[in-house]
């Protein structure tokens, strides 16, 4: 239930068995079925979710159109951090693309762990630093690389997403229409 969570945790910050047991007390196991929401726009985001198994997406809806900002597969974390940290209503939806098993850290558990577990603070700092770096890289890529190159980078970096997520969602994530993505894929296939 917490295997991958603690595997990834230990890769960042090694824990003793006792520390692991202490942290486990504060974790909430949660199962979502495909298409079920973890978060809906307008609600306050009260959890940081770690994916043990399955897949989710985070997206905004504008004029009825979905804009995907993040996918999360096994070993990844997902949340609306703005809402989580400020207590303001969330601006994103998060739902399950497959039947999914999560490990949730609630806001209350997060605050308590920060107070009582110094290694949790280190883990969170690394997690948020990595999320910031990934966001910065994505922004740089979006404003500086040609679209074909962005797509190639994406497929090389996230082959699992390409396999498991429908093309129209990948197009949404890249800010393209499905037709444009289809043309790019055809063009790249012809090059081979």
């Amino acid at each position, binding site marked *: *239930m917490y295997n991958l969570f603690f595997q990834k945790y230990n890769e960042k910050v090694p824990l003793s068995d006792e520390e692991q047991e202490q942290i486990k*007390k504060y*974790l*909430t*196991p*949660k199962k979502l079925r495909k298409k079920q*929401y973890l978060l809906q726009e307008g609600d306050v985001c009260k959890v940081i979710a770690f994916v043990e198994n399955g897949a989710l997406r985070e997206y905004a809806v504008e004029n009825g159109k979905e804009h995907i900002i993040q996918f999360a597969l096994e070993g990844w974390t997902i949340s609306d951090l703005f809402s989580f940290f400020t207590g303001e209503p969330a601006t994103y939806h998060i739902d399950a693309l497959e039947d999914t098993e999560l490990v*949730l850290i*609630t806001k209350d*558990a997060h605050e308590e762990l920060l107070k009582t577990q110094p290694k949790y603070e280190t883990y969170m700092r690394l997690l948020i630093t990595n999320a910031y770096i990934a966001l910065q890289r994505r922004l740089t890529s979006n404003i500086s690389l040609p679209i074909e190159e962005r797509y190639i980078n994406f497929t090389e970096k996230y082959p699992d997403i390409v396999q498991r997520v429908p093309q129209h969602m990948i197009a949404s994530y890249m800010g393209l229409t499905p037709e444009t993505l289809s043309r790019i894929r055809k063009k790249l296939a012809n090059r081979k």
Partner: protein
Amino acid sequence: MRKSKATILSANLEAIDCSVEASWEADIIIVAVPFEAEKDVARKIQEVANQKIVISISNPLNSTYDGLVTAPDTSAAEELQKLLPNAKVVKAFNTTFAADFSSPLIDGKQVDAFIAGNDESALQTAAELVSTVGFNPLVAGDLTVSRTLENMQLLLIQLNMKYNYNWLAGWKILH
């Protein structure tokens, strides 16, 4: 996750014949089994109930309905909390009869539903749930107050049998 009245009322409900799977999916777990069966259910769901709100609705009545089987210094809810140490056990819905759920207004008055627990946010969530069902939520105190609440239902059952309320009766604090 959503707790607004409209959302709870419009939620899709599904019975799942597996306490572990159902509790794993749930945000709030209602242990709707007799007191004697709680130990077995708690053992099964202990891991998936971690940090979740678990509502204890049971009344630990003896077989002749003239007393409780729990010792005076504990309650069914406190015993459940010992079995699920990392869950947020809340006592609720134990001072109401089943028929009250379809008629939460008796003699024109909204029936009170008493709540007890140690976690503030869990009490708040339970109060919203009680209100959505149609009762007037009253937070009575911490989990030790469950002892009183379970005795209140013992008395209500005894009064029902004595005066034949037809299992449609409830508590109301007038003030």
